[in-house]
């Protein structure tokens, strides 16, 4: 069955173009033209991924993202005409997984959607799914992370970052490696790794866990937990 994508954008023309590209790629598309309608449409259709414009009307895309994050772990890609880095970073702080700047190429939107949806596929049978390091434990089959046995909520991107570091706990993870493993095809600012690493670290320490993602200057990051 085709995966469902929710497109929330106040521009009829933008929604139409995105919808044509996604349907052409085999996805089912549902649409909303404002924030409250987007949240309502989410509950009605339970989409697999959400494309969300930042510059919506009375309830902007960042607030919509915060509200959606309270009820779903589905990947969220921001569509934004604001290209400055601050907006992008604020977008990720709100819980987004990726962003596409307008004007956009429809095939880039489809590529980002496909990449994020691939990341949430279950591991193959026989593949290792459980990892432990100090008070941290991870189960990639159920996509749960725990600190001292207590579950913590991570976004999809944070979970994938932690998984990659725990899978490679004996080595340094380079920026290129993390971008490739976590984001797949990435066309944006490569400092996205720092942003998500910082959020991951803060969530784990706030839950009483260790400071993960130790910087190895000029090389990358290592898990940093024995």
């Amino acid at each position, binding site marked *: 069955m085709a995966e469902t994508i929710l497109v929330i954008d106040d521009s009829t023309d933008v929604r139409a173009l995105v919808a044509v*590209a996604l349907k052409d790629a085999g996805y089912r598309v549902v649409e909303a033209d404002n924030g409250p309608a987007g949240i309502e449409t989410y509950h009605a259709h339970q989409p697999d991924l959400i494309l969300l414009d930042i*510059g919506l009307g009375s309830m902007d895309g960042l607030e919509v993202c915060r509200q959606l994050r309270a009820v779903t772990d589905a990947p969220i890609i921001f569509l934004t005409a604001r290209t400055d880095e601050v907006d992008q970073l604020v977008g990720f702080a709100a819980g987004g997984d990726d962003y596409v700047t307008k004007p*956009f*190429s*429809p095939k880039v939107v489809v590529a980002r959607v496909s990449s994020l949806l691939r990341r949430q596929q279950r591991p193959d049978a026989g593949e290792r799914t459980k990892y432990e390091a100090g008070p941290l434990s991870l189960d990639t089959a159920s996509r749960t992370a725990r600190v001292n046995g207590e579950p913590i909520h991570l976004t999809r991107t944070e979970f994938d970052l932690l998984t990659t570091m725990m899978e490679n706990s004996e080595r340094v993870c380079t920026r290129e490696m993390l971008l490739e493993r976590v984001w797949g095809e990435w066309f944006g600012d490569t400092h996205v790794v720092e942003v998500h690493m910082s959020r991951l670290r803060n969530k784990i320490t706030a839950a009483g866990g260790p400071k993960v993602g130790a910087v190895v200057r000029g090389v990358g990051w290592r898990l940093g937990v024995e």
Partner: protein
Amino acid sequence: MSESSGLGEESQAVLAFIHASQTGVLRDAIAALEASSPDDLPAVVHSIRGSLGSYRLHDAHAHVADLSRLIADQSTSPASADAARLGTVEALRALQVAAEDRSVISHG
């Protein structure tokens, strides 16, 4: 009406949709700019800028991007912003007329 030579990278369905929609997208942009008030001009410009560029209407997008920069400048007076808005409407209308002329020629 395409202003781009890079459309070949998209699928045939998307290409066809973009070509078929460009006139309507430009018309929508002109109507939105004409109807905008000083208060909602930044939001309108923000919205149509993304649409025009995504539909590969690069010349129209450039005009609206210029307007966007001007109204974002704190030193721009309301009168100057409105004059620029009307100037942009005229520029987009000229592009629309040129596109319709090309269409008549190619279909004639």
